[in-house]
């Protein structure tokens, strides 16, 4: 007999998997067809990044974070989890950090080819692949998680774009909130026994982290080279 009870991750999640997935579905029901607009916004942002218009691309992601903060976290998620209100403030903060790109801080107008490919792959995963995961597993199109409407694809797409658009210490600063949310979301899904969905989140998060590290490492090499040249 085991007498030593202890808390598990599941004991910290105040809702069941059904309730959480229904919450995602409600976002779909409530805001359709905003999904299409957000999808276009995401694609336009990728195109701007490809055209090296980093400042405008970064600024365009900010409204998506503001909308998710208000509509998802403050309006719905906070009803289920007291932490929802606090998470909303983090999402608003991320929107402000993205708007700071207007000042030109940390922008990378000429990303290297490797960073560009990895960044665009991650961003497209969030934009074009993640929306199909919910419907394929549940059969309901309203469970499609979409950039700018639901937090997970918003964070994944943003991390991909961050790898493209930023560099230096600001690259890491602006990646913190999306990365932490994905970690939290992945752990939540894991605790809710939605293991495949959690694995997708962890793989994308891991890939994005690798992209951040590679980009930072690449830039430090360039800096050394420049020093020798000088």
């Amino acid at each position, binding site marked *: 007999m085991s007498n030593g009870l202890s808390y598990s991750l599941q004991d910290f*999640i*105040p809702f069941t998997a059904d309730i959480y997935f229904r919450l995602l579905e409600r976002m779909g029901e409530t805001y359709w067809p905003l999904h299409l607009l957000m999808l276009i916004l995401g694609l336009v942002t990728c195109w701007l990044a490809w055209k090296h218009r980093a400042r405008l691309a970064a600024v365009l992601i900010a409204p998506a974070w503001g909308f998710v903060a208000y509509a998802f976290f403050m309006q719905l998620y906070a009803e*289920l989890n007291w932490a929802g209100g606090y998470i909303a403030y983090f999402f608003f903060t991320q929107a402000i950090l993205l708007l700071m790109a207007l000042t030109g801080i940390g922008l990378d107008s000429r990303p290297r080819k490797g960073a560009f490919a990895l960044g665009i792959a991650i961003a497209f995963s969030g934009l074009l692949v993640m929306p199909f995961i919910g419907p394929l597993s549940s059969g309901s199109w309203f469970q499609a998680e979409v950039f700018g409407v639901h937090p997970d694809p918003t964070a994944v797409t943003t991390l991909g774009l961050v790898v493209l658009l930023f560099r230096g210490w600001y690259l890491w600063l602006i990646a913190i909130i999306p990365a932490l949310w994905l970690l939290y979301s992945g752990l939540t899904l894991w605790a809710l026994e939605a293991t495949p969905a959690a694995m997708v989140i962890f793989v994308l998060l891991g890939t994005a982290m690798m992209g951040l590290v590679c980009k930072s490492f690449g830039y430090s090499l360039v800096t050394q080279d420049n020093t020798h040249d000088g």
Partner: protein
Amino acid sequence: MNSRFTRRQSLKMLGVGLAATLFPSIPSFAIDRELLRKPYSDNKTLPVIGLGTWQTFNVGSDTRLLDARTEVVKAFFELGGGLIDSSPMYGSAPDVMGYALQQLGVPDSLFSAEKVWSPAGGSAVEQVAELLGRWNLEQFDLVQVHNLRDWREHLAALREMKQAGLIRHIGITTSHGRRHQEFEQIMASKDIDFAQLTYNITHREVENRLLPLAQDRGIAVIANRPYDGGRLIKGLKSRDEALPEWAVEEFGCTSWADFLLKFIVSHPALTCAIPATMQVVHLRENMRAGMGAMPSANTRQKMVKYIESL
């Protein structure tokens, strides 16, 4: 043979007929078998199967899920249920109870159990007032100090509220086997009506000291986590094993829910177990466990050995 009905038989038949008309969805076992009740303070009794709301009733403002939970509450009362337990820690669960009671009305059998929980903010008096509004009730039957958080202040406040007639009973809770020493000291030294703790077939530490103490002090005991957060029942169901024959023979066991819940509520010190569910079909399974024969002390030992052998 005398074919005439006695007065008692006639009344019973009338009752069965009425119940079948009013509650056609209730299977026959519910009509001819009553939910076992156990005494708590002042010789009142409670049905041994209650309803927990952790995780399952936290559905926010989603009308579809609010209606689904209302169906669960409706079936609970139809099957003779009484105690429903919630907490400010459970998100929107108190609001969901308010919604359900507004739809169904407040039945006489309701035994409303709430908690005060420090992180929710405000004093115990303020929390109780807010929770009453969320449940749409005027008085709680029981208010407990959740997980012993700031229990000295809260218990003193709850005692005053009880004396003023604002709440009927007071208690303390713990779960996951935490802070048992402190829990025991409070049970031994303070005047409380209820103690809520974790007790199930794989977690029986409370049998050693807390349950005997509850019997000595006349404290009613509520068992939380009867399925160990769902792991026990899921584990047993996934094994796809038949129920042991002796369980069927000795106490008419019909399901693993029956097996696990009957083990808990057959303990002499236990008053009520509070499994949580979001499905009417599971609720019916749970309620069935409070009906019919209960395992004897010897059978309980056999049940423990069986589970340990798996």
